[in-house]
């Protein structure tokens, strides 16, 4: 669906035309029917990549294809829907007018435009305010109308730039549900984000971009396989005196709240020993949670590597 090869982008900024490299030879692929999460800290080059794919900026090197056609071929855009980061719309238009304009730009007929716009406004829950000017829309509503306009042409590939940023938990859940709905409908979704918990829930594969370089790519499980249990957290009650002091020495940190104490142990071996000690001293274990590396740890590690 999307393929890039050695994609490079350089900008010249400021009075002295200082060179800024936004992308250092990005090579990646997004397959048909998958939800691909494009991760990276701010300024990593995610938006630049998306803009290149959408023909908004011209790359300074490398090549990219959308549905096996080069990005310079604007006819390919017929089958693509795009939502830019923090989208701004024509705020003097009403929701219905804006959807109509989007449909016109795809050369859709009036009947088709109206039917599709109605359907989509329903889907994103905005049909009640379709005659309201967009300037009166809240941030969440703007994001939803943005998604609706991106789907007007029933695209095969949906590209979303930070679809969840700036939304409250309810808004994020709505966007997540829309993405999952699209996936069920057989669409390919490529979106950039830095909201990691969402990625783990909805993405088939992810790519991590740091300072213009792709550091990792694969399914979430692939990326996290090989990571060990990092620590074990145990909450217990009813232990006191000498045993309590021993537990404190074994753990890497301990917090007591009321009768309950939560202790962290560096590995499973230490946790097992602690568990035995609690039982032997007549105490009670309330919970025992092993912590594996999360996508967030991997992300932080990859971002950190570059800094060193």
């Amino acid at each position, binding site marked *: 669906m999307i393929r890039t090869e050695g994609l490079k982008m350089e*900008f010249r900024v400021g009075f002295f035309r200082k060179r800024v490299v936004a992308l250092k030879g990005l090579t990646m692929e997004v397959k048909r029917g998958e939800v691909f999460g494009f991760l990276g800290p701010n300024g990593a080059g995610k938006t630049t990549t998306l*803009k290149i794919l*959408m*023909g*908004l*900026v*011209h790359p300074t090197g490398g090549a990219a294809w959308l549905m096996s056609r080069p990005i310079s071929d*604007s*006819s390919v*855009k*017929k089958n*693509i829907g*795009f939502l*830019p980061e*923090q*989208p*701004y*719309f*024509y705020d*003097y*238009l009403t929701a219905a*007018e804006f959807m109509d*304009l*989007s449909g*016109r*730009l*795809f*050369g859709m007929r009036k009947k088709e435009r109206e039917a599709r716009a109605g359907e989509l406004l329903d889907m994103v829950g905005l049909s009640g305010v379709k005659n309201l000017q967009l300037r009166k829309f809240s941030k969440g509503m703007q994001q939803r109308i943005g998604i609706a*306009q991106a789907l007007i042409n029933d695209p095969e590939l949906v590209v979303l730039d930070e679809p969840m940023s700036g939304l409250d938990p309810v808004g994020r859940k709505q966007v997540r549900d829309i993405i999952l709905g699209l996936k069920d409908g057989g669409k390919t979704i490529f979106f950039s984000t830095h909201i990691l918990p969402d990625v783990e829930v909805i993405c088939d594969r992810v790519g991590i971009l740091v300072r213009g370089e792709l550091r990792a790519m694969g399914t979430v499980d692939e990326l996290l396989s090989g990571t060990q249990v990092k620590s074990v957290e145990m909450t217990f009650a009813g232990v006191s005196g000498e045993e309590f002091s021993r537990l404190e020495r074994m753990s890497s940190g301990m917090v007591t709240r009321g009768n309950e104490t939560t202790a962290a142990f560096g590995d499973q071996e230490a946790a097992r020993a602690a568990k035995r000690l609690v039982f032997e001293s007549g105490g009670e274990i309330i919970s025992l949670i092993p912590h594996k590396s999360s996508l967030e740890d991997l992300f932080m590690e990859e971002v950190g590597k570059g800094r060193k």
Partner: protein
Amino acid sequence: MKVYAIAINTFKEVIRDKIFYSLVFFAMLLLGSSVLLSTLTLGERSKIIEDLSLSSIEIFGVIISIFVGIGLVNKELEKKTIYIIISKPIKRWQFLLGKYLGLSLVLLSYISVMTVCYMLALYMYTNKLPWQTLMAVLLIYVELLVVTASAVLFSTFSTPTLSASYALALYVIGHMTEDLRGLAAKTGQAGVKAVLKFVYYFLPNLEDFNIKARTVHAIPVPAEYILMSVSYGLMYVMAILALSVLVFQRRNFK
């Protein structure tokens, strides 16, 4: 179809903007004041009204052309609305042409409304309808089309403030190109002569579109002259727009 969609959207954009109405309001005010001023004159009242009205239609038209024209592309870039448009299957030249036609449509409505008001005012106060001045209005419109195209061109590569200054300078110099030619004939220095001649041939001769005085004083203007001026203006517009597209095509939207 796509050009039409962008043009209609641009038309809505300008028509729903308060700035447009305040400009039209001031143009009307000036038109009204021409009636008031005419009462102070000893000569023919109608000439004062015609003269002042035509001039105010032109001046406010130029202000709308330049200040709305430079915003056409810049606003889209600044508000990033262009991302939504360019990511759809539309070519950049279609976008630019649509924007231009949208504003041309606004100017056409503006000039029509103003002309109707002006004719009405004249009829009410002098009982005359000077139809020949409509030719002057036509050429004012063609002039506005040229000024708008240049505002669009400047805004494809420059900031709003600079674009406005360039477009305004072009308007002023465009009205003085005859003087430039005269100066070129008189100067002895070859370098200065070449520069002046270049400016004369390169910049639009906007004075060509000015037949206000002639129509007000009922001096006949040959139909061929009008036809030539209109063709000249439209060709100039096409050339400027082609240049704008060339610049816009290469632009990165950061």
